[in-house]
């Protein structure tokens, strides 16, 4: 029967233990005295009376204990006692405590940081209604036409037809993210604009914070709906949360648009990584994306489409419905394709509309980082395991040293459970300290990792605070660590061989089990370290291979500068004369060897690609297309293999023509490409003549598409200048800015980067993997070396007597050393054997991350093994040499 009053009094008792103990002792003493007196009155002597009193009482100590148990909450009291004892222990051995907490902190902190990123990038769902019902569309396969290089985009007509599939989907939405120039209140800036279908907000189930959100009525006629909705964050940041913004007009790309509402707080758009500042109806595409006004071509895939599954429709059912729907759509669509050969037709018709869970929205970060993040997670997990094994070893040694203490306590009646609990409390305290410190490490690392992300736009959506999931994860890992590294020593030590420990014979025999355990833990550490070091080696070689696959362009020497003149109200014709002006001024800078420009992006960009038809062939060719200014190829130091490149004359006479790269020429025309024609794949008669063939150039990511077709620049909107320098690029940043400013003082210039720096950004994943895996590998080696050193030193101390005797009997230094080294070699051997299958298994998993090197690469594995062996032997030799200095008499006298 539970009584509140009783519970309360127990709680109070826990807090007042010392005073209550004294009182209880007084009370019991009083009782014994009274009984003694009474007995004496009955005629016993004082001694007899006293003994009789105690006998009658029935055991004072037990009664006191029973009272104590009844009085308070024994569990908490013993726990507090354990904690106090543990803290005293930590204070006495600060070195041990520091090493333990630090290595745990690093392991747990790194784990939490990576997990937070994984959580934000991979796991977190959209903040919309019932996100589990959402699906995302993808149309893999041959589309025949242009596709914007976002994954998962489909053409507008498909989206339109999907809207009528109401038995499968209760709503379908589409969106397209782009950048626009916004002028409001006198300032102009570039903002992130999401073109959304009228169904967008309805399907997502969102409600406005102020005003209204866009509806189907805002999405009927192209160009007829000049309205916009602000995202909450943008409204906060840019308009200071002013409600009067509703109804006001701003200019987007010169078009006046009325703000009608503010989206709900916390909604950042469907892309988890890209911030959306402003949302605008899809029908306004021509105004928002003026260089690409067409909305409904079936040959252009650009829309990101989501749908909400209707009641009772499962993912499989939806997919089946889509298979039927898409097949009939394709059969219709294929009729608009002209001059397409049979096998291409077949491939086209085999295309599928795939339906996937749309829970996490689209995310560039996801595509790029999912696999490396998981690899990192595995690596960090291994580091934590090593740290735990290390600590287990330390704790085993510590516990072995406490054998005497435990022996006495057991002899005095302490239960094994009690001792076990105390050891576990110590481990848990260490783990908690490690967890808290780990959280601090995580905070710092997350900040660092996000700062390293090259694409700042992507990083804007990410948060620095480890969230609740990560917190729970850290705590979980801490507890698990406590169990893992505390359990084994705890079990080991509470198996008492009482007599030997009381007699102090802690050395050889009773230490046996502990020694074996320690050696096993070190072997484990060796195995895990080897795995990490091999991994580090593989990633480092991958990075090296990737960086070395450069050709064609002197990336270190080309500085890229981009301008966006439309911000300042330039029209198309004025832009061209501006570009020519800047071109001239840049050429005039001393130290500049040559200048060229493109219409958008670097000359080796791969984000705009097209399907083209080559003369004399029916197969489509998918190539990167880049618009370049006259003379740019030669200016950048590229050599023409045949023909010529664009001149200003070509441009002025608006003559058509392209330049293609040589392997493209070789593949399609056997090298004799000049004079042949190519064109858009949909046109059965290609009309654009090839006027020149240039040497191959490497795309920014070495695994990217390698074929380039260069067009001349017409109707320029942006320009990116390529400046080939003879001097170090940093020295020219001032003169370059001056040159641009002298052409137009109001023209803002963005960051100046070398092409190599931009390429490095594309290699971010590989750089991150190489760097972090090297750090982890180094850390692992350090921990393993530390473990080996610890075990060997301990073993030397334990065997001091034996060593002393051997020395006295005339054993040579080598003999003694070999005793020590043999132990090390055994641990090494066991570790290497353990590691072999692990390496084979684990590296099958990271195969996709590698480039130019196989997971089982013998060179890397041999080098890693050699490194490990050297470090292990060195770690073992140190205490070994100390063993030699043991004087025989010292050893014999030590006990």
């Amino acid at each position: 029967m539970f009584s509140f009053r009783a519970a309360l009094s127990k709680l109070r008792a826990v807090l007042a233990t010392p005073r209550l103990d004294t009182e209880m002792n007084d009370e019991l003493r009083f009782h014994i005295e009274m009984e003694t007196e009474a007995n004496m009155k009955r005629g016993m002597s004082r001694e007899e009376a006293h003994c009789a009193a105690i006998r009658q009482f029935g055991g004072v100590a037990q009664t006191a204990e029973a009272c104590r148990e009844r009085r308070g909450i024994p569990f908490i009291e013993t726990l507090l006692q354990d904690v106090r004892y543990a803290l005293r222990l930590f204070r006495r051995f600060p070195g041990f405590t520091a090493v333990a907490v630090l290595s745990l902190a690093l392991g747990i902190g790194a784990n939490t940081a990576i997990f937070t990123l994984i959580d934000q990038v991979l796991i977190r769902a959209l903040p919309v209604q019932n996100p589990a019902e959402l699906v995302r569309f993808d149309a893999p396969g041959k589309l025949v036409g242009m596709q914007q290089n976002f994954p998962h985009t489909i053409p507008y007509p498909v989206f339109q037809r999907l809207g009528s599939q109401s038995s499968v989907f209760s709503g379908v939405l589409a969106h397209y993210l782009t950048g626009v120039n916004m002028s409001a209140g006198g300032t102009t800036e570039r903002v992130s604009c999401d073109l959304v279908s009228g169904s967008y907000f309805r399907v997502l189930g969102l409600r406005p914070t102020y005003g209204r959100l866009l509806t189907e009525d805002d999405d009927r006629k192209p160009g007829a709906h000049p309205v916009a909705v602000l995202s909450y964050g943008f409204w906060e940041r840019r308009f200071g949360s002013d409600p009067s913004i509703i109804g006001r007009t701003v200019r987007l790309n010169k078009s006046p648009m009325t703000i009608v509402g503010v989206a709900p707080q916390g909604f950042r758009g469907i892309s988890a990584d890209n911030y959306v500042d402003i949302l605008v109806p899809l029908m306004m595409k021509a105004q928002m994306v003026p260089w690409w006004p067409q909305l409904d071509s079936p040959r252009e895939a650009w829309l990101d489409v989501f749908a909400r599954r209707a009641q009772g429709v499962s993912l499989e059912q939806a997919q089946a419905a889509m298979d039927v729907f898409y097949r009939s759509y394709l059969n219709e669509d294929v009729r608009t394709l002209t001059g397409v050969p049979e096998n291409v037709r077949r491939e086209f018709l085999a295309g599928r509309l795939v339906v996937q869970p749309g829970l996490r929205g689209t995310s560039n970060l996801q595509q790029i980082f999912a696999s490396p993040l998981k690899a990192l997670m595995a690596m960090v997990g291994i580091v934590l395991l090593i740290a735990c094994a290390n600590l287990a070893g330390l704790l085993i040694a510590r516990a072995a040293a406490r054998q005497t203490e435990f022996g006495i306590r057991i002899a005095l009646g302490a239960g094994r459970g009690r001792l076990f609990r105390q050891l576990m409390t110590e481990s848990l305290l260490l783990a908690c300290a490690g967890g808290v410190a780990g959280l601090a490490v995580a905070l710092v690392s997350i900040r660092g990792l996000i700062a390293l992300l090259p694409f700042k736009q992507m990083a804007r959506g990410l948060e620095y605070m480890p969230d609740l999931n990560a917190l729970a994860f850290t705590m979980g890992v801490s507890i698990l660590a406590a169990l893992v590294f505390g359990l084994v020593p705890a079990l080991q030590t509470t198996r008492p061989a009482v007599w030997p420990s009381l007699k102090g014979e802690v050395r050889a025999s009773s230490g046996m089990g502990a020694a074996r355990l320690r050696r096993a833990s070190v072997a484990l550490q060796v195995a895990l370290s080897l795995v990490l070091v091999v991994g580090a080696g593989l990633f480092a070689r991958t990075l090296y291979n990737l960086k070395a696959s450069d050709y064609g362009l002197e990336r270190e020497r080309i500085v890229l500068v981009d301008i966006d003149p439309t911000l300042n109200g330039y029209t198309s014709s004025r832009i061209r004369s501006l570009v020519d002006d800047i071109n001239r001024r840049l050429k005039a800078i001393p130290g500049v060897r040559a200048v060229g420009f493109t219409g958008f992006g670097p000359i080796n960009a791969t984000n705009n690609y097209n399907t083209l038809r080559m003369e004399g062939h029916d197969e489509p060719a998918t190539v990167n297309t880049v618009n370049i200014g006259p003379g740019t190829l030669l200016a950048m130091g590229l050599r023409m293999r045949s023909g010529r490149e664009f001149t200003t004359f070509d441009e002025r006479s608006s003559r058509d023509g392209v330049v293609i790269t040589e392997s493209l020429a070789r593949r399609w025309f056997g090298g004799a490409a000049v004079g042949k024609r190519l064109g858009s794949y949909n046109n059965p008669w290609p009309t654009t003549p090839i006027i020149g063939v240039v040497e191959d150039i490497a795309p920014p990511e070495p695994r990217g598409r390698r074929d380039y077709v260069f067009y001349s620049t017409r109707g320029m909107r942006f320009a990116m200048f390529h400046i080939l320098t003879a001097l170090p690029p940093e020295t020219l940043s001032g003169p370059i800015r001056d040159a641009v400013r002298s052409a137009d003082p109001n023209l803002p210039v963005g960051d100046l980067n070398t092409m190599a720096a931009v390429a490095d950004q594309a290699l971010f994943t590989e750089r991150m993997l190489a760097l972090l895996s090297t750090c982890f590998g180094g850390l692992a080696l350090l921990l393993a070396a530390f473990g080996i050193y610890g075990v060997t030193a301990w073993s030397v101390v334990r065997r001091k007597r034996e060593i002393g005797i051997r020395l006295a009997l005339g054993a040579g230094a080598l003999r003694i050393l070999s005793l020590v080294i043999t132990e090390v070699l055994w641990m090494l051997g066991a570790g290497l054997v353990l590691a072999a299958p692990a390496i084979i298994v684990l590296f099958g998993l990271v195969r996709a991350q590698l480039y130019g090197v196989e997971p089982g690469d013998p060179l890397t594995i041999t080098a890693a093994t050699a490194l490990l062996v050297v470090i292990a032997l060195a770690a073992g030799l140190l205490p070994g040499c100390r063993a030699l200095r043991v004087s025989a008499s010292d050893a014999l006298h030590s006990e």
Partner: protein
Amino acid sequence: MKETKSDVLQGTLDLMILKTLDTLGAMHGWGVAQRISQISENLLQLNQGTLYPALVRVEQRGWVRSEWRVTENNRRAKYYSLTRIGKKQLDAEAKQWDRFAAFMTRLLNASE
């Protein structure tokens, strides 16, 4: 026939303490023990020690309160006294005990 201490149920020990304090007024632990063995005419051989955990319990439940006083012999002792709700508990338990005893008697007589 002497009852051994294992026959004494915990609850009845509480009842004994409450009744004793009701009769004696405020009393220390030893006094309560003396009174109980006196009444039982040494039929009940309690280990006196079992009294003290029981005293802790009844005090926790609020049936009894305690204070430290000086005895006639100038010793310090902890005196216990019955509270109002202790009295109510005593009455309730006594009634229950009577009913139980009556039932047992009837049962044992009926089986003949």
